[in-house]
């Protein structure tokens, strides 16, 4: 999470509807924005209408699928920098936005509603005990890049150089990232360079969850006595790309339906339709999984 000086936020200010209402002297644009704001508030209960504005996740510097604990930590960290008690009155506007973002993201129903309105989908991996074990944890603040090991052969080179970061997964017989940034930069650099099969990659933090979950072997559906067993994608990066494309498409479709409800619709009808949409979405997720399996199986 990048910590920006407060001035950088004041650059954002003119795009802020409420802010301009209270501080700007440009009358015409002010009221135009004000109008947008009020309608948005009444229609979906949040204020993220302007395209240039940071969404709640960007504001808090967390990823879309972050846990409530991560959101809480990020919120506290930012509050400690920008709260008016610490920086004085100029922190007022930013803290208001932080509070708004926090309120929305900490309540599961509000967050889901918000995700829909900004077109983001959290990928609903059901993280079981085993899954959590095989995901890397974080040491220190969130950073834009993370380590990811795409390996199939037994090699303990990296775990030897940076033992706090990498470990051998006994069950799978290959190395994986235990703790992101578990060692200092130098050690990690050495282990990345020394990998004999060049399988340690620097990737975007946002992709980490997806990659780590896709590389895990999944039980394969069998036909009769044939084909049962475990499988994992041959090229995990390609699989991730495909998956993301699918999700994006799905989000777009879903949003298209969501955004244009007929005027006369009652709330009961809306609820029923939303339900149906949700079911459709679930089915689609399943079919995507199946597709991935077919492609790489």
């Amino acid at each position, binding site marked *: 999470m990048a910590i920006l000086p407060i001035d950088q936020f004041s650059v954002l200010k003119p795009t802020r509807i*409420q802010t301009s209402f*209270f501080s700007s002297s440009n009358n*015409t644009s002010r*009221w*135009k924005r*004000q*109008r947008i704001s*009020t309608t948005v*508030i*009444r*229609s979906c209960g949040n204020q993220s209408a302007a395209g240039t504005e940071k969404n709640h996740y960007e504001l808090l510097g967390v990823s879309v699928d972050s846990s409530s*604990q991560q959101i*809480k*930590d990020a919120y*506290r*960290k930012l*509050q*400690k920098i920008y*709260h*008016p*008690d*610490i920086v*004085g*009155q*100029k*922190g*007022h506007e930013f*803290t*208001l936005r932080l*509070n708004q973002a*926090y*309120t929305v993201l900490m309540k599961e129903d509000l967050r889901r509603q918000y995700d829909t309105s900004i077109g983001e989908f959290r990928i609903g991996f059901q993280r079981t005990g085993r899954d959590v074990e095989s995901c890397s944890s974080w040491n220190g603040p969130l950073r834009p890049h993370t380590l990811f090991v795409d390996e199939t052969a037994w090699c303990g080179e990296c775990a030897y150089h940076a033992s706090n970061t990498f470990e051998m997964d006994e069950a799978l017989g290959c190395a994986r990232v235990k703790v992101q940034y578990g060692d200092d930069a130098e050690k990690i650099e050495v282990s990345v360079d020394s990998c004999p099969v060049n399988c340690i990659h620097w990737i975007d933090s946002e992709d980490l969850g997806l990659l780590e979950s896709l590389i895990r072997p999944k039980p394969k559906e069998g036909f009769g006595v044939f084909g049962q067993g475990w499988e994992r994608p041959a090229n995990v990066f390609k699989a991730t790309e495909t998956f993301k494309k699918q999700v994006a498409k799905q989000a777009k479709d879903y949003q298209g339906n969501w955004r244009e409800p007929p005027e006369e619709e009652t*709330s009961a009808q*809306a609820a029923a339709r939303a339900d149906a949409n949700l079911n459709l979405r679930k089915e689609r997720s399943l079919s995507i999984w199946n597709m991935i399996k077919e492609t790489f199986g």
Partner: protein
Amino acid sequence: MAELQYTVASDSENTGEEKSSSAFPESAIGIDIGTSQCSIAVWNGSQIEVLKNTRNQKLMRSYVTFKDETPSAGGVTSNQLLHEREVLSGAAIFNMKRLIGRVDTDPVVSASKSLPFLVQTLGIGVRPLIAALVNNAWRSTTPEEVLAIFLVELRAMAELQLKRPIRNVVLTVPASFSRFQLTRIERACAMAGLHVLRLMPEPTAVALLYAQQQQQIVHENMGSGSEKNALIFNLGAGYCDVAVTATAGGVSQIKAITGAAIGGEDMLQNLMRYLFPDLDRLFSNHSTNDIKSMAVLRIATEDAIRKLCSQTSVQVDVDLGNENNICKVLDRKEFEEVNKQVFEKCESLITECLHDSKVNVEDLSDVILVGGCSYIPKIQNLVKAICKREELYSEMNQLEAAVSGAALEGAVASGISDPFGSLDLLTIQATPLALGIRADGNTFSPIIPKNTTMPARKEQVFTTSHDNQTEALVVVYEGGGKTVEENQLLGFFKIGGIPSAAKGVPEIIVCMDIDAGNVLRVFAWVMMPGNEHPVTPFMEVRMPTVDDGHGWCGEALLRAYGSALDLVTVQKRV
């Protein structure tokens, strides 16, 4: 802060400059004005120091004695014996915190009529007459004045010890104080030449101290600072406050806060009535003898309550004069039975606060009990019972916790940093009371609900209640009641220039903004359908605007305008 309105701009600019230019800003001092006792503390550069008076006391009785020439703040300089003599004479005024900013229809004021000075109520919704007996004459004063006299002496005492002038203060206040009462406290401070930097609800000051203590533990153990939930229960002489806080990394986040005007004073009066049922009838005249009897009974009862904290029974032996003698053995069971309602109210406040915070009792890391009444065994037991635990948090001085927290906030808000990270702290406050306006008849329509994180800004859309209505009244209230009558009126203003239209067409948008210094501003403007611009300039009104006699304003408005200028809430369109 309200009375400094004309200097606010330059004032805040100055603070801003001080922060950046001066490497060693001076810490604001923390003051805890209790109903019965008062204390003052300051961050001395490395730790919190609770200042002592010339008699080496950290806790000073909050009372002011009126004499021939100048009144003096008793507790700052004098001792217990002198206090008793002055209380007996009727010249001492105390319990200011229970009287400040209240009207004579308030039950808390009525309950103060058994105090050994004059509290005259006429029951018409104005401030009560308060007077001290000086040379056999009732000399009137106000709670603000009494508080100001007391603060002046406190200030002089602190300036002498710290060898520097003092201007900025952080005061602790009860959570149940309305914004109107807060302005009275600010006025008293202004009269004493003090600038209020922050008014902190008492449990949030305790929460800040807790955050600092937890932060230190983390530093010492080099462990990870996981989140800790704590319940803070503060019971003083005049007020009971409860808060639930989530603490991690020196940040204390208030999840819920609530309070009521209930405390040791109520227990004292209940017990006085139990010991001497004729209390109200006999002492209604406030003659010199009555006052003496009242004071004797008061001192004896106070003593009995104190003894019942450590013993299970106590012998009460008082001669009230006029052949009224009380000779009785009082046991702890009786005391608890007499004050059953007080204890039940305490329980309901804790339950309510836990419910609002959505924190389970099992998830509480610590339960903190502070305040002058925290020594009463029944209170300790009921807090333990509700929070389902054997032990209470023991790392805090129960009487100094609030003032220490205020001193910490004073240092943080003054921009002081500590090389060891002891001031790497923050309290994220929440609103203890809901704020809203009158709409749909006499309904209170909340705009900023209770327990909203501060700073906060929220808006809501209203519309006209009549066809061709061109004006509307925005009447602002604070409190938890469903109808406006149950809540505290803060102020009102009129929006004019609404274009003629059928009822329900114009949109009147009311926005409320609370900054971190707890200043409330109300904005309102009018929008018409199909028009992107508001049709009138928007109004900005700083609240509260009402002064004394505010109890009447609501009725007066109704009499003058009826429902002609009413507003109606707009249902949220999904």
